[in-house]
């Protein structure tokens, strides 16, 4: 089976209906709720209204199976979701939609969903930029959550918690010296661990992006967009 045949977006595009497809789509919608919320907030809606609209959007998205209109040849979930959201907001009768909650799946904010992510993204120049920025952070959050889980399973949670900040910002020599003293290791031991941790994070980010593309050029293009949005974290 090819590498991309089992990604969540590929499953959605291939099956179009069924339990497996529904689970894959719900999982994608759950992970990428923050960029939808950031886009709506950036359009000027109040926080409560934006929450209601996001919920209504996902409910419609799933109940009315909008994904069946996706073109498998243009295989990015990110682009499809944004286009669907724009259409939804154009057509939405806000007074009506805000009352229509539920009806299927309710997407509670994830525990890992950062309010900072949405607030920071909402300050971008355009709603599209807010969506892209928040999307990038959601991808990174998902990869970091998996990395933390791996650390826990490998008995390295203390290291992960101490070094996580090194993944996002570029630390200087003093930061390394302090962390090495805390973990009671030599600085060069720590430096190698940080490099390997970053390497693994990039692998997990790539795997996460694979879940939302159909592979090939789409994946590389998504990686490029993410590097632009996240800078140091993806170097």
């Amino acid at each position, binding site marked *: 089976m090819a590498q991309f045949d089992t990604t969540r977006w590929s499953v959605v595009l291939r099956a179009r209906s069924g339990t497996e497809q529904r689970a894959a789509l719900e999982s994608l919608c759950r992970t990428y709720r923050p960029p939808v919320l950031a886009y709506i907030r950036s359009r000027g809606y109040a926080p409560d209204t934006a929450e209601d609209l996001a919920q209504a959007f996902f409910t419609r998205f799933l109940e009315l199976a909008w994904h069946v209109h996706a073109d498998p040849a243009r295989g990015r979930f990110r682009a499809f979701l944004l286009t669907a959201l724009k259409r939804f907001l154009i057509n939405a009768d806000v007074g009506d939609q805000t009352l229509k909650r539920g009806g299927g799946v309710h997407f509670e904010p994830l525990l890992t969903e950062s309010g900072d992510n949405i607030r920071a993204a909402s300050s971008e120049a355009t709603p599209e930029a807010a969506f892209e920025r928040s999307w990038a952070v959601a991808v990174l959050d998902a990869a970091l959550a998996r990395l933390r889980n791996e650390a826990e399973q490998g008995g390295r949670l203390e290291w992960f918690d101490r070094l996580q900040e090194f993944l996002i910002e570029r630390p200087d020599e003093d930061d390394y010296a302090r962390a090495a003293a805390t973990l009671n290791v030599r600085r060069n031991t720590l430096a190698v661990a940080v490099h*390997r941790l970053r390497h693994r994070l990039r692998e997990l980010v790539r795997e996460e992006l694979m879940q939302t593309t159909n592979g090939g050029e789409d994946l590389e293009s998504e990686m490029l967009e993410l590097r632009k949005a996240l800078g140091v974290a993806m170097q």
Partner: protein
Amino acid sequence: MMSSPSHRIDRFATTRWSVFTRTAATAPGEARVALAELVQRYWYPVYAYTRRSGHAPAIAEDIAHSFIGSLTRDFRDHRAALERGQFRLYLLERLEAFLGRDWREPIDAHNDDAAVPAELEARYLRDFADSETTTPAQAYERGFALEVVARALRGLRAEVQRGGHLAMYDALEPFLACEPAPGELDAAAQALSSRPLALLVALKRLRELAGEELVDTVTSHEQLRAEQAILHTVLTRKSQPP
């Protein structure tokens, strides 16, 4: 006088890289000495790789130091890397394998006694100032080529110093990778109050020295030709505007 085929075979049989590849499985002590000598010469491409990976200078140096220490400690499972051929490819493969290991594995904390070469960062800033889009692997390739050139230039410098023609050294560096344009060598000779033929001879010697540097990193004529082609490609790219 042309060298005989048997002479040429002997030449490659005793290179550092040949000694290492021949003895890695059977005589680790001898292999370690040969590898350590080679690795010590090629710190710079390793540093260029780690630096281009986004680390601060001291941290990049730490990582390079750890890698070089680990490389010469245990190389018994390096068969796949050895099959790649030349030392340049072996070193890159081992570096990427070292850096790509599971971060949760314990890291060997030996006191590495390999001396760190001077001016790594100064060279990096000079050579990679305009290389924002260069990948770490590309930085390694360029660093390797520039190290070969630097060592050849040091050899030439020592030779011309003995002959009292030190100024010639500076004049020749730009012509190592590219043939001089018509008139360029004449102009350089005039500026040095020398003859174009003398510069041409010195340039030939510089290229020979670069070739001699590469010989220690290969095991055959074919590999040497491949390395010379790569060197030329990398240096030509370097001399072109970005």
